[in-house]
């Protein structure tokens, strides 16, 4: 069921992030394999959203390389960066839907800009993307008229418009009720299996992590490095770092 684990689709090498004079992440390296659901997690302020922003080309790293399908987005020219960004999809934490357009117009935008489909074809494809996230009835609603959970689902539909090979999700479950969150997890797994899409998910919702993650890396803001890598259930039981075990068991310090 899972894709070849010896073909990394994303390679991060010696990545360092310094923001506002402060070191956020100190020289980390990791790989994301094609077709897997890869989760980046850690406590608040550990730099996971920052790492994501670097991986999608919004910020240039202070040092290191980020290779997406073999091309280094960290040092790429504007032209090449745009080409790489066309092949990935990003879902932002608050949805980041365009407020002046309806949902279907939002999803249609990448199709209009980057493909040569006819308007009717675009309409059908956009409608299907919305159906996949369960929002087809709200296709003509404006973002301000729908709830937060629906905004996130619409944002995923838009991120998938061009059938990207890699989808980046920034805190997809934040602010969602348990059922919606579970449905979202189910959607992520279904997309990963059926379309062989690689997912890079930033989250700290344990339920989702156990449900969807094939592999995780855990960042720790105290050391600014990766403190754990592997399957979440394995880390919960077998990690030699007590803090990691504590995190996965959702235990507080009772000392």
């Amino acid at each position: 069921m899972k894709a070849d684990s010896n073909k990394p689709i994303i390679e991060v090498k010696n990545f360092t992030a310094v923001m506002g004079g402060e070191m956020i992440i100190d020289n980390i390296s990791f790989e994301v394999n094609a077709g897997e659901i890869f989760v980046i997690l850690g406590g608040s302020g550990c730099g996971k959203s920052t790492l994501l922003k670097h991986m999608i080309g919004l910020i240039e790293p202070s040092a290191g390389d980020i290779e997406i399908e073999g091309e280094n987005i960290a040092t790429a020219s504007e032209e090449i960066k745009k080409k790489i960004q066309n092949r990935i999809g990003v879902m932002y934490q608050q949805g980041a839907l365009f407020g002046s357009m309806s949902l279907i117009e939002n999803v249609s935008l990448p199709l209009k800009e980057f493909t040569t489909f006819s308007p009717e074809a675009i309409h059908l494809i956009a409608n299907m993307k919305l159906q996949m996230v369960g929002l087809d009835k709200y296709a003509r609603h404006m973002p301000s008229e729908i709830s937060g959970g629906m905004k996130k689902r619409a944002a995923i539909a838009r991120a998938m418009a061009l059938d990207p090979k890699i989808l980046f999700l920034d805190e997809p479950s934040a602010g969602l009720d348990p059922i919606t969150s579970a449905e979202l997890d189910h959607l992520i797994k279904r997309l990963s299996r059926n379309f062989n899409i690689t997912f890079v998910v930033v989250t700290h919702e344990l339920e989702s992590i156990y449900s969807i993650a094939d592999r995780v890396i855990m960042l720790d803001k105290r050391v600014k490095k990766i403190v754990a890598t592997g399957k979440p259930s394995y880390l919960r039981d077998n990690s030699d770092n007590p803090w990691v075990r504590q995190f996965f068991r959702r235990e507080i310090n009772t000392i």
Partner: protein
Amino acid sequence: MEDIKQANHKTFYEGENLLLEISGILDVTSTPKIWKETSKIIQESKFKKLVIQANGIHDCEGVGIALLFHYKKMARILDVEIEIQGLEKKFEDLLNFFTHENEVKAFVNFQDSWNTPEKIGYHTVQLWEEIKFIINFIGECSVLLFSSLKHPSKIKWLEVVKLAENAGVNALPIIVLIGFLLGLIMSFQSAIPMQRFGAEIFVANLVSMSLFRELGPLMTAVIIAGRTASSFAAELGTMKVSEEIDAITTMGLSPLQFLVIPRLIAGIIISPMLTIFFNLAGLIGSAVVMMSFQYPFITFVNQVLSAVKNPDMFGGLFKATVFGGVISAIGCFHGLNTSTGASSVGESTTKSVVNGIISIAVLDGVFSVLFYYLGV
């Protein structure tokens, strides 16, 4: 990395059936062409059943599934049977996920279907509602303002001073510049025709009277509207969008008392002061022109002093005071009434400037009539 994937199609008849063989990779680069071409073929052919042979499809992305769904939809519209053969199970499962009941009809906006009388009616009602709100708001603010002035200790004077500095002191450069230029230009333009009658010195009368009575208060108010009303609207609008106004209300404070009154008072204070500077700069500009026409400075001063009397100046400053209050109130009002969405703060800002300028123009007319009857 840039290679365009290939997808091919072949059609042939088998009895009354149209066989459509699709092969290759269906992704965003390869599918548009095959979509257009095969749709055309299907439209132009006559058949009882459409058979799609999908054995040759190596890879099918979302748009590929969409294409197959499109064939199903076409079959429904053309009222023919459709069969898809040889499709990989996982793609078939995906295809079966989509139903046609929930498809949305394209491009129809409810409001666009109204005819002209309906639209006129809608906008008139909207306009009337807005006018009512403005009058309501100005009334409410006046009441609060007078009650605040009766209890000066309740006003946050530090806040007022900070706002006045921002709205007043920081506006001095532009006020002085425009005042100076206006005085200069007006003097120059009127001196030229007046030269014919040797009456250039009366330019001093003309400019000083216009400045003190009308142009000073009006122009200053317009500049304040552009600078300050917009900034109040944007500030309060952003607070509204980020729920800060709600937070103030649920704490038991009144947003009007807490936010609007300090801004009102600041506007009322700085407006006449800025007008004085505007007038002064205008007179200096005029003096420059007159001196270039060889009139001594003292002559200019005497002319001005003889032309402008106390009622002129104080009338103008009184107008300026009222203008300052009205502009601040309108800026705050639109800020507090910001709706949701990214464009709303921009809309509020624009509305506050436009409404502010319109209001002071109307008020100026009212004052003109009023002063005439009062003999000011």
